[in-house]
């Protein structure tokens, strides 16, 4: 309840205070404060009823309960790992959650240090010396990488190459982001779940500005020829952009060691529960491209007492300074999600990260083997090592199998007429027996 009897429950004014303040301002009514010509004034209603906090929590709880209670074995770019209670508790502290971008660093040292530590973790994970504070998601990260490649291009060409298996969502975003440039987007073939290196070698030429490779791939396969790919891309002076996620990076080959110029991907795998695709785009690159990086960077400086202090830096790259010549239009980013990911990563530590990543390999292999034993299923389709997920062949039409599994309470991907994709992490691993049993029923 509040003395503010009607209107916004979050405005504190009593009617008396409102009247007194209007008096100070020298007008008779709130309406008199608005300088809106009559012909554009709105006199209608939105027709949105105000609901109390309790009523609304009930209403939304009932609404979301309309989502079926499925155990999800879904991945393909959005993954679920257990988020420790520590992450929620600390990230919900209002000093973090309700603060703005750190344009006044003297009173935002705490968040700046968290972002600096986040950047540092990404530097360790990628082996690249520069990591920004966040992109929206993996898709916009690839897109920004392509735009960076366009700005720093050493090759004369205009082509950005991506895997033929790239998710449509990512492809679409990149297409839109390069739409305002002279870049064109093309794809290269895959071979048994990995990059078809020979075909890629044929595709890459002096018209190539950037080659994007995923590891693990969207079909869960671990890429086996990254160093070769890096070499052939660099041979044509194109940028080598590698896509991954922070859990996979804890175990798989270090991007810098295979020649990656830019690393993009998801850090949302830490810090966020399954969030309908909400992301946290990572962006790391080489020193050379520092002044071409999109997004915010936190650096170290000193204060007037010569003590270490953190601050947003190199802001002349950004839209609020450089306007149409900025490296990107990004302003609001995913800072709080980065804070959550940083706390989650810190709570795992390097041992925990490596253990978690190794389990992603082991659990996927084990589930694939078990499904392979199910009559009517062959898994994995690709003769590769897998990370979290893999594709299985279904003798029955895959869509029918998936529908039957859904009726049994499980969600899986359909990725081909006879291909299903399954993702396993620690959060659904307890349901693997039931999933296998369901497959036995329906396959």
């Amino acid at each position, binding site marked *: 309840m509040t003395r503010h009897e009607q209107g916004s429950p979050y405005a504190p004014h009593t009617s008396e205070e409102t009247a007194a303040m209007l008096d100070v301002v020298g007008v008779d009514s709130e309406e008199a404060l608005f300088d809106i010509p009559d012909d554009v004034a709105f006199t209608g209603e939105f027709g949105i009823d105000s609901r109390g906090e309790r009523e609304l929590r009930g209403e939304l709880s009932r609404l979301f309960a309309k989502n079926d209670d499925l155990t999800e074995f879904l991945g393909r770019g959005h993954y679920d790992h257990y988020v420790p209670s520590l992450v929620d508790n600390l990230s919900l502290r209002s000093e973090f959650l309700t603060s703005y971008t750190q344009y006044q660093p003297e009173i935002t040292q*705490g968040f700046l240090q968290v972002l600096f530590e986040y950047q540092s973790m990404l530097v360790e994970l990628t082996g690249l010396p520069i990591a920004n504070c966040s992109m929206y998601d993996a898709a916009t990260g690839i897109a920004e990488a392509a735009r960076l490649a366009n700005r720093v291009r050493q090759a004369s060409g205009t082509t950005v190459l991506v895997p033929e298996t790239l998710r449509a969502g990512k492809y679409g975003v990149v297409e839109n982001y390069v739409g305002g440039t002279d870049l064109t987007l093309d794809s290269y073939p895959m071979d048994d779940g990995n990059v078809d290196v020979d075909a890629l070698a044929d595709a890459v030429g002096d018209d190539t500005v950037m080659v994007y490779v995923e590891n693990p791939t969207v079909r869960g396969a671990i890429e086996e020829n990254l160093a070769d790919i890096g070499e052939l891309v660099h041979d044509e002076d194109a940028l080598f952009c590698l896509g991954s996620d922070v859990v996979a990076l804890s175990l798989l080959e270090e991007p810098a060691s295979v020649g990656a110029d830019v690393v993009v991907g998801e850090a949302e795998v830490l810090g966020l529960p399954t969030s309908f695709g909400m992301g946290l785009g990572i962006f790391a690159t080489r020193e050379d491209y520092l002044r071409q990086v999109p997004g915010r960077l936190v650096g170290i400086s000193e*204060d007037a007492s010569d003590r270490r202090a953190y601050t947003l830096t190199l802001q002349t790259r950004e839209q609020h300074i450089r306007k149409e010549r900025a490296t990107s239009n990004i302003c609001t980013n995913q800072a709080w999600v980065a804070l959550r990911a940083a706390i989650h990563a810190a709570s795992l530590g390097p041992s925990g990260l490596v253990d978690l990543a190794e389990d992603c390999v082991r659990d996927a292999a084990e589930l694939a083997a078990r499904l392979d034993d199910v009559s009517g299923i062959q898994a994995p389709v690709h003769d590769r090592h897998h990370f979290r997920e893999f594709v299985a062949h279904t003798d029955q039409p895959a869509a029918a199998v998936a529908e039957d599994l859904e009726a049994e309470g499980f969600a899986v991907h359909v990725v081909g007429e006879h291909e299903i994709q399954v993702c396993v992490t620690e959060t659904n691993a307890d349901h693997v027996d039931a999933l296998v049993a369901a497959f036995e029923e329906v396959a």
Partner: protein
Amino acid sequence: EYEPLLSEKDSTKVEVGGDDSPLPDDLTRDSLELPELSEPELARHYTRLSQMNYGVETGPYPLGSCTMKYNPKFTEDVAADPNAAIHPDRSERSMQGTLEMLYHLQDYLGRIGGMDAVTLQPPAGAAGEFTGILVAKAYHEAQGNERSEVIIPASAHGTNFATAAMAGYDVVELPSGDDGRVDLDALEAAVSEDTAALMLTNPNTVGLFERDITEIAEMVHDVGGLLYYDGANLNALLGRARPGDMGFDIMHYNVHKTFATPHGGGGPGAGPVGVVDELAEFLSSPQVRRNDGGFELFDPEHSIGKVHGFYGNWLVLVKAYAYIARLGDEGLEDASAKAVLNANYLGSQIEYDIPYGPFHHEFAATSGEQDAADVAKRMLDYGVHPPTTKWPEMVPEAMLTEPTEVENRETLDDLATAFNAAHGEDDETLEHAPNKTTARRIDQVSAARNPRLSWHALGDADE
């Protein structure tokens, strides 16, 4: 008060690979070196860091154009509903609850902005601008009429310029008129057959309503251009005026401003985009519509495609929905009324000059001979967050101030006291501020000249 870096508390190098590894060594990294600390150590670390950060619950946060209002607690609980934590690749039939909420949010936003169709996908305001400009571009291309220019007032947000450029347009910058509003003659001179769109916020960035909006819209529409509304200042107008009614064809909403989703130290936000009927077919895909007895996704016929890998910042959208539903018609209208009242009251209490008016939810005071950035630093010493400074440039040494509706008279008076205290101080005092903060004045030049962007870059001198 100084809190060491995690890496200064511990650095543990874990060897990766070897006999127990599930992968051959040529597919793994060699090692991973990061801090490895216990939960109590981490809890203290982040708790202390939080105590070195100013948030809306610390005190007033009158950042002009940023609309830092209170973020209702219950929206966090709503967003944490486990039934809402679903994967985007589920079948539509198994996520009817999620689709229904999205449908209603599209609908609410359409009503609030006077728009006919809304996409929720853009993950931030700038992403919304980009989406909106792509829609404009797609529209013009569909008309067989590619255009090359986007007109933007000089006082606009930097994102407008960057967005237009990202979409491949040339930016035509429009100088402000003497009254701080769009200069119709200048606009007349700027518009042409090359005009794809005019991007405008209203009230503009010094809080003035563009009284000539109807003429402006006509001038742009007359040359076949579109009118784009930057939603950053929508908190001034809720229930009093709608962009759609003013002739805007496209708009984005900053739900982390107008609809009180938390700013999170820089994000995440969400930047839904609304358009008039004629442009609905170009919106990003997918959107949500009703079908028989339920809800489904669909791709607009000539959709621009995707602007986010999935469906945008879901958790933010949930909070925005909860906020709008909590306030309803009456609450939304009142929020704007009190936001404008608070700005006007605060404006009346400070000794700095405010060149332009009548302003609405924000005003741009000028610090005159004083350096506005120094004034801001000095205000930190008085325990409040300062306004946005040195922007927009049409006001020299601008202090763009937006208290929002959540402040009471006492906190507005506190802000005025801080302004007025600094007003009476000399440059020497201002230049040496702040003195009472966790860190004192921070050297920006050193940070940029010698970039140290990770703990790996720390020399011995820093450790």
